[in-house]
């Protein structure tokens, strides 16, 4: 077994040192009836390395993917370009195989990277501080709802239905075990209905949760929401699906958001069939002690040199136990390194280019739509909803597109159980070229 270094002679010598005759004696404290017969588990037989490679390669080859199709899928996961350097950095054993940096003297690499990550995330979102990650966007939104309850000591959460239905479902689940209520405010025209949302805020409201750009790609002015939150003392929570937007459009923090959270997958992490991605989480400095998750801070060592440590740990489960701000322990550490490397390579200018091209691709697609398909209007970043005259036409198009190696969009009802079945959620990134748009439009034309 190639991962086990001992020879039989090693094992014998070690058993002798321990003072037992056999390895079985080491398990004598487990009652006999609990021992399972060696080799009796219903698992596959062992594979050598070449066999594992063959098995996984065969499985991978059976899939279509964004590398051999044109991917217009979004809904919280996006096919952006990932520079090779990102993958190289996170493949380095010192980052990949390190534990949580509880011993800071020998973890300064991870810690300084986290500090840089936190700084860049806070800057991109225009917020005061960011933590060292949550599992994903959905759990980050749920944790934001909980954090707002702690800060305001109120138990009513208002959520716009233009927030990704999966974020809403996880948030609803987390809140359902606690006292209080969760109100979902419907939207119209595949955009956020700010008026209805504002009307739903009252003096018992802990937080209002929106998505910006929203689940349907709509971009809108958050200023009225800030005013309404101020009137009622509620916190404004802004989530997002594709963080690349903030290379182009105003960041949520510029509208005075109290908590900003969402997915950092767009920043150098492949789609990976749903994970591992990363949840970004930022807030105002004054609320930092109610923030969930790990956070890295700057300090000095015994010789007065700058260094970094995990800090504010009195919020966390290993110190505070049942009174912790969250139960989170393992987070998405390595994905922070991926995000930090990606942002470093792109800089402001690169991030702006990615966002600009992602948006331009959608605009070109929408401009070329044939008459039998309509796109949800208004300001959209890189995602919108296409509506067909019937489910039959839409599905005919999906089939045609798939034959032409195009993942043309996500049937809306697949993510949003409340949606009818003639819509398609369509997203673009800088990975979409002009020819891909042309092929898409040709397929649409043919589906009429």
């Amino acid at each position, binding site marked *: 077994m190639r991962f086990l270094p001992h020879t039989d002679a090693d094992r014998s010598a070690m058993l002798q040192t321990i003072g037992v005759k056999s390895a079985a004696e080491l398990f004598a404290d487990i009652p006999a009836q609990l021992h399972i017969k060696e080799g009796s*588990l219903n698992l596959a037989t062992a594979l050598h390395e070449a066999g594992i490679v063959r098995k*996984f390669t065969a499985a*991978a080859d059976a899939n279509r*993917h964004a590398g051999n199709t044109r991917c217009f899928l979004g809904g919280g996961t996006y096919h952006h370009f990932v520079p090779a350097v990102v993958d190289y950095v996170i493949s380095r054993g010192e980052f990949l195989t390190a534990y949580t940096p509880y011993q800071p003297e020998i973890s300064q690499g991870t810690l300084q990277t986290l500090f840089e990550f936190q700084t860049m995330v806070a800057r991109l979102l225009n917020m005061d501080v960011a933590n060292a990650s949550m599992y994903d*966007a959905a759990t980050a939104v749920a944790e934001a709802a909980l954090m707002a309850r702690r800060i305001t000591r109120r138990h009513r959460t208002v959520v716009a239905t233009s927030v990704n239905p999966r974020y809403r479902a996880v948030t609803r689940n987390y809140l359902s075990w606690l006292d209080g209520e969760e109100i979902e405010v419907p939207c119209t025209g595949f955009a956020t209905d700010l008026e209805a949302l504002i009307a739903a805020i009252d003096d018992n409201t802990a937080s209002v949760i929106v998505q910006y750009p929203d689940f349907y790609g709509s971009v809108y002015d958050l200023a009225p929401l800030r005013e309404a939150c101020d009137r009622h003392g509620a916190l404004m929570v802004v989530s997002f699906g594709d963080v690349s937007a903030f290379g182009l459009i105003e960041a949520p923090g510029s509208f005075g958001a109290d908590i900003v959270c969402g997915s950092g997958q767009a920043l150098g992490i492949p789609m990976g069939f749903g994970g591992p991605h990363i949840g970004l989480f930022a807030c105002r400095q004054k609320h930092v002690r109610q923030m969930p998750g790990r956070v890295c801070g700057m300090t000095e060592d015994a010789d007065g040199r700058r260094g970094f440590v995990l800090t504010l740990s009195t919020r966390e489960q290993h110190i505070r136990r049942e009174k912790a701000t969250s139960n989170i322990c393992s987070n998405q550490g390595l994905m922070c390194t991926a995000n930090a490397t990606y942002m470093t390579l792109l800089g402001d200018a690169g991030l702006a280019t990615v966002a600009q091209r992602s948006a331009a691709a959608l605009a070109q697609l929408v401009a070329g739509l044939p008459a039998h398909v309509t796109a949800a209007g208004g300001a959209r970043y890189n995602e919108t909803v296409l509506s067909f005259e019937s489910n039959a036409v839409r599905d005919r198009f999906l089939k045609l597109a798939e034959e032409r190696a195009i993942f043309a969009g996500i049937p809306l009802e697949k993510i949003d159980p409340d949606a009818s079945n003639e819509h398609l959620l369509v997203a673009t990134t800088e990975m979409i070229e002009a020819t891909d748009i042309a092929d898409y439009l040709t397929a649409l034309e043919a589906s009429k």
Partner: protein
Amino acid sequence: MNDTRYSGVAGLMHEEPLLFERAHKAATSISLPGVEGDTPAALAGFARKQAAGIPGLSEPEAVRHFVRLSQWNHGIETGFYPLGSCTMKYNPRVHENLVRLPGLAHLHPDQPEATAQGALALLFELQEWLGEIAGLPHVTLQPAAGAHGELTGIMMIRAYHEARGDTKRRIVLVPDSAHGTNPASAALAGLATVEIKSGADGRIDLDELKAHLSDEVAAVMLTNPNTAGAFESEIVEICRLVHEAGGLVYGDGANLNALVGVARPGDMGIDCLHINVHKTFSTPHGGGGPGAGPVAVNEALAPFLPMPRIEKSGDHYHIVHEAANSIGPVFGSVGQVGVLLRAAAYIAAFGREHLHKIATDAVLNANYVLARLKDAYHVPFPGLCKHECLLTDEIQNHHGIKTLDIAKRLIDLGFHPMTVYFPLIVHGAMLIEPTETESKATLDHFCDAMLEIARDCEAGNVEALHEAPLMPVRRRLDETQAARKPVLVWQD
């Protein structure tokens, strides 16, 4: 300080400034694909007014920056990592290649099911394997980490009681040796935690347990082997008592490495178990994550599993999103797929013939370390251990040396410290978990270092212990200052 007997020597190490201390460049170093075109007019009114202030380094500078930072880290590839209850084992390199196969890395979670059958087949098989290994056949892959699995499990247990109309069960009993995540997870699920005191041997005290069982207890959360490295030999009776009182038993699978392929939590009477695949099944810790915490349950809890789940009908795999009694989703997708696939590859390498060798060598290694150190360090709970052994600093305290000093001295000698000050049931805990992937030579080297530290204490030769660590790029860091005035982002 040039002690060549141990590997903790300083090499050519570079100071490396923060990104933000370098010149800010307007240009990007990356040539990007995409369509050339104007920004849509409708977005003009929302244009970002001020750039974020992300530095942007050239590719060679960026590589050197992060490579230098990486060299300030210790990793399992660098050296021994005897962290108790963390199971830092070798992470097979081939796994990194597998998850980067384009047909796995570039799948969108919502692409048509028919186009992702290969990935779904691997994940479904992993679900089956984990159920078999746990002795609890129904598995969700959704939870993103161990603590997330705990929360998921406790939610299911609460849903189970409530579905039976048994609504007053709002208490979770947790031994005082438990991981901090246990009470925190119970609280998130809206349940109150009551701590039960461990017995004199560090194990669950049956009388203490009985005294706390009632019709208000939803569950007992326990870790087996416990965090002192001891198997709860009365586990069958413990589960029987809890069940008799109407409660369920939640198993924290953090220590599954001691049992994998040897005994199954489900056979012991445990109803629900999370599995830290980043521990037992060797997925890299990544400096804190990502992990994954699949949860395996028995028939009684199966209806409450979170959605979506992967199911098989005929030759076709489906992602099923709805089920009548499901607690709902706990994560935005089917799970941390890349992490889960690495775990599947680890299990595949051992297979049914060899899987138990993970546990037998892990337990052998822990007992070997214990045997070599038990005379020099205080052993609070004597006897054989499972996959980790617990020592304390009681003997060294007489010389003014505490666990923290020993831990920091180990760094200078070339080792990552063990887990310190946990579990909380003993004073000055040092919890050592060597795992199955360490050689006898490495263990001997580590034990030699520990024995030398003990001898230095005896001899009053303690200056190096107080000063340690001297070798790494930084010495002891001021954590009090960091917490009092938190500086969490760089200000230009």
